[in-house]
């Protein structure tokens, strides 16, 4: 690694989604100082944390990791992979290590690995809660001890410090696999270790954790060069370009605020960032600042299982039925509640999704006076067991099929059902119940580190 620049290769925005080898190898030919890739996200909902499933299949991870390890082995390039399995739980860190063990055994590779775990002990969190060290992150209720206990598992998004500790303790580590991690960390860490401007390190991390999503057209593999007072972005696929507009626009992507990006230990401030077009395909970025916070916090994420779901999917074409759909739905709800009077009403939920009316925007829909040609109705039932959910769904479906309504002339049936089974069991349903900031005196304290050789 040179002292005045750091070269970073990111093969893709999300490990497990696959990436074109051609452009990845082009990046490898440029001798990057690290291959860094994030595999975490809460984007696809709470069921991963709540049910302990990985974002992608084991086979998908195996394939992507194989391609990365081949390059890492041949050219001795370190590999940093964060948020193993998507949710970053301990079992998924171990799952990734097992994948690396398998590949290494088959191919005859040898690696020194460091693993960082990010699952929080519940007793540790309850203790912190009692000391008022856990606060809501955004529009969330204050955390209750009960919710900590109900969560399947709770992870914390580590900052850069556990990575730095590893790099300080050992100079022979080939691979770091971390549990839940603040997305930019694996990209930012080498720059921070070498004393580069942390604002630039974090901003580069923020952009590159999404691979070449900031290019036009959006792509996968991205090459970043970090210098003392700027960084350069170049997508590896020659048909993609980074432009001032595309990179500046990406800065906004899926963030709460356009230029203030809070993370563990401080805020990345992009209010004075300058984007410059270096040539046709490369953009130079400077002026990003890091403002350390007084209190060091990490974000906690947790989800609990709240029951089981079943649905039915139905179409409505009859204009008189469409006109009276609210009346029909209300009748169905009442009939079902009456029929299942032995089941406590608060133990189950029926949610009608009415596409053609407000199926997509729900409460946020303001266009109320439209006459649709067709409606698609999905009834979502959530109940304590799968059997109860399906039974309620079934009762509602038959009621809906035959329910009378004002002006009805189609007396054989009210809904068109496309699929069997008519009621579809969806399995467990979960809810994010922990999304809070945990204050830490020592940013490494709750994250345990393990070294191993494969």
């Amino acid at each position, binding site marked *: 690694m040179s002292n005045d620049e750091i070269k970073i290769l990111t093969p893709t925005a999300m490990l497990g989604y696959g990436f074109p080898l051609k452009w990845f190898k082009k990046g490898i030919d440029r001798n990057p100082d690290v291959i860094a890739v994030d595999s975490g996200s809460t984007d696809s909902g709470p069921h991963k944390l709540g049910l302990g499933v990985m974002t992608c299949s084991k086979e998908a991870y195996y394939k992507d990791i194989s391609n990365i390890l081949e390059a890492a082995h041949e050219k001795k390039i370190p590999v940093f992979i964060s948020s193993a399995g998507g949710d970053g739980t301990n079992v998924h860190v171990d799952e990734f290590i097992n994948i690396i063990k398998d590949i290494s055994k088959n191919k005859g590779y040898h690696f020194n690995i460091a693993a960082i775990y990010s699952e929080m002990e519940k007793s540790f969190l309850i203790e912190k809660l009692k000391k008022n060290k856990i606060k809501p992150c955004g529009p969330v209720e204050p955390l209750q001890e009960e919710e900590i206990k109900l969560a399947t598992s709770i992870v914390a998004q580590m900052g850069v410090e556990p990575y730095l500790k590893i790099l300080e303790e050992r100079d022979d580590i080939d691979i770091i696999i971390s549990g839940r991690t603040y997305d930019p960390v694996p990209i930012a860490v080498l720059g921070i270790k070498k004393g580069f401007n942390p604002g630039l390190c974090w901003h580069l991390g923020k952009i590159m954790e999404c691979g070449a999503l900031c290019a036009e057209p959006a792509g996968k593999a991205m090459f970043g060069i970090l210098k003392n007072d700027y960084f350069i972005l170049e997508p590896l696929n020659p048909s993609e370009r980074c432009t001032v507009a595309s990179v500046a*626009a990406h800065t906004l992507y899926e963030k709460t605020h356009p230029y203030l990006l809070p993370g563990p230990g401080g805020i990345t401030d992009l209010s004075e960032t300058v984007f410059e077009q270096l040539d046709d395909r490369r953009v130079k970025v400077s002026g990003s600042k890091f403002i350390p916070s007084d209190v060091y916090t990490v974000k906690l994420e947790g989800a609990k299982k709240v029951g089981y779901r079943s649905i039915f999917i139905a179409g409505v074409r009859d204009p008189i039925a469409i006109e009276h759909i609210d009346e029909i739905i209300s009748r169905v709800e009442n009939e079902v509640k009456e029929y299942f009077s032995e089941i406590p009403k608060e133990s189950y939920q029926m949610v009608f999704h009415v596409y053609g009316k407000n199926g997509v925007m729900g409460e946020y829909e303001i266009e109320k006076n439209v006459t649709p040609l067709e409606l698609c109705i999905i009834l979502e039932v959530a109940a304590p067991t799968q059997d109860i959910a399906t039974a309620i769904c079934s009762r509602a479906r038959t009621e809906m099929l035959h329910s009378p309504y004002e002006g009805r002339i189609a007396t054989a049936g009210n809904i068109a059902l496309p699929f069997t089974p008519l009621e579809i069991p969806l399995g467990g349903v979960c809810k994010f119940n922990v*999304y809070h900031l945990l204050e830490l005196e020592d940013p490494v304290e709750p994250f345990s580190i393990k070294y191993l050789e494969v």
Partner: protein
Amino acid sequence: MANKTLKDIAKVIRSKNAGPFEVTMDIIFKTKEDYEEIKNRGIITKELISKLYNIPIEKIITFAYFDAANAIKITLPRPRPQGSIGETDMHAAQQHVPLMKIPV
């Protein structure tokens, strides 16, 4: 800009989840001139967003201009935690439409 709406002068109008409890919307203009004009004339305000999304003004989390990208960002709370019972839009990808029709 008679009879034009925001979708005619914007390059990007999009919505996306920002964590499991927020939905964020980005408007990115095709030209600096249009961006500056909309900004200076105060066409898009918190009051307007409140009306378009049927949400009290004090619940708007972010309403900010970002000159470097000729962009406006608006962040709102989601009606329920992402992916829980009753979810209609996991990635909050289709919540931007009311913005498209803003007359400019």
